[in-house]
């Protein structure tokens, strides 16, 4: 049972002489509970691919199916709600809301959707990420690694169908990166959470169960 299936994705910019094929027929699938890394150099098309998978950008052709739904057919508001319910994002720059506490950041996606907060589950997530003592502070009071741990907690808390992590350690020093990657790996297993991580680094990619390599917009 695949939770994510991408078929023959292409993304072209410009035309004729200036045509750039950022993605050139990419197909892949991810099983429930899997931790997959997509590795490629800058300009390989890996970020474009992640944007397509997360519904942040539309492909020139091809389909992306998440949780049995073809997201290329969703428009505007519908796509927005779909993303909020089904996809957890972890960005290189953390993207926490600066004006609200760590705890409010973690439950924000749940509240935006008008759902009840599953308190036991959320406190389990918080404890696993070692954030118990930081819940009432503002994100700006935290180190980079701690902020990224909040972002991981936020992504896990709403139990999305899939978590997409774009260079999650790109802004962290190597020691903090190891911490964050370890947490991604162990929490994914613990909470049965499907994850796809984008990276340009071999060593980071190795932390995943499976590695997909992308070069010049194609899977190698």
């Amino acid at each position, binding site marked *: 049972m695949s939770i994510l299936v991408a078929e023959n994705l292409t993304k072209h910019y410009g035309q004729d002489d200036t045509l750039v094929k950022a993605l050139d027929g990419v197909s892949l699938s991810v099983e*429930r509970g899997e931790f997959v890394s997509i590795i490629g150099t800058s300009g390989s098309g890996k970020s474009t691919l992640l944007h397509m998978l997360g519904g942040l950008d539309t492909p020139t052709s091809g389909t992306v199916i998440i949780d049995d739904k073809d997201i290329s057919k969703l428009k505007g508001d519908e796509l927005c*709600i779909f993303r909020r319910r089904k996809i957890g994002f972890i960005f290189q720059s953390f993207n926490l809301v600066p004006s609200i506490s760590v705890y409010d950041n973690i439950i924000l996606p749940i509240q935006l959707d008008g759902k009840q907060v599953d308190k036991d589950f959320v406190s389990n997530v918080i404890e696993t990420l070692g954030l118990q003592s930081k819940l009432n502070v503002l994100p700006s009071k935290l180190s980079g690694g701690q902020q990224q741990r909040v972002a991981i907690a936020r992504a896990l808390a709403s139990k999305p169908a899939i978590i997409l992590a774009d260079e999650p350690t790109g802004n962290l020093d190597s020691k903090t990166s190891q911490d964050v990657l370890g*947490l991604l790996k162990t929490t994914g*297993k613990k909470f049965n959470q499907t994850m796809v991580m984008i990276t340009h680094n071999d060593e980071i990619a190795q932390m995943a169960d499976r590695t997909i390599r992308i070069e010049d917009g194609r899977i190698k």
Partner: protein
Amino acid sequence: MFNNKTIARLEEMLDAAIEGNFVESEYDETKISRLESRWKEFLGSSVLSNKNLENERHRLEQFISDISHQTKTPMTNIKMYTELLKEEAARGADASIEKISNYASMIEKQNTRLEFLIDSLTKLSRLENGTLAVVPKEEQIDKLIATSISAIESKAKLKNITVTHKKDESLKALFDLKWTNEALINILDNAVKYSPEGGAIEIYTEQFEMYQAIHVVDNGPGISEEDTAKIFGRFYRGSEVQQEEGVGIGLYLTREIVAKEDGYLKVVPNNKREGGEMIVYLRR
């Protein structure tokens, strides 16, 4: 209370779930749309738990077939050497004492192998079905390392291998001392096995905000990048090490133990550094 349209949609949702083809209709801010998404989430997680059960059953089948396969070789060898021993003994006064004692030691070796195998399998099954639970609590890292070293010291001495570890009594992490000892012994045992005569094994620690790492470095051949993902598989043996004794269950067991206490393992492949390096990350 509910209008007919809502009831009709709820019935449709149930029917579709029974048929196994439920798809959410559209995404908007209505309660029914949210309910559809939750319904989908529930169905997804029950599919996952069914799949896990299925995997579990498959694993058990695989496990049993692995055991019968793994026990076959030592059993056959024991049988064969026993036959040879009997034949030699039947020659009475002409029998070669040298041959007899050679066969006897071969039987002993195979027996040890079998014993080790069964011992490991028992541990593994206790770990997997939870008879002997892994209970992490705050423990001293030094204590863990020292007990593990003492378990392999005599083996290391036989090959003139030095084992070094810089003490630091302040380091603590969350782990189950008994099980984690087992895990670390497996790693050290491998380091001894694959180190050359007169080699050196270095153990050092490294602190992170969330984890406490234990590095085990040896000057053996190390692990190739392509093998790094495979070495944790059950009964996996590296291609260059087939002649070394071992059953290929240690690292699998080690990974299972460490995962149960929310830690993980990392291998540094031998294209990144000379020799072998394995890192255990334990939660702080």
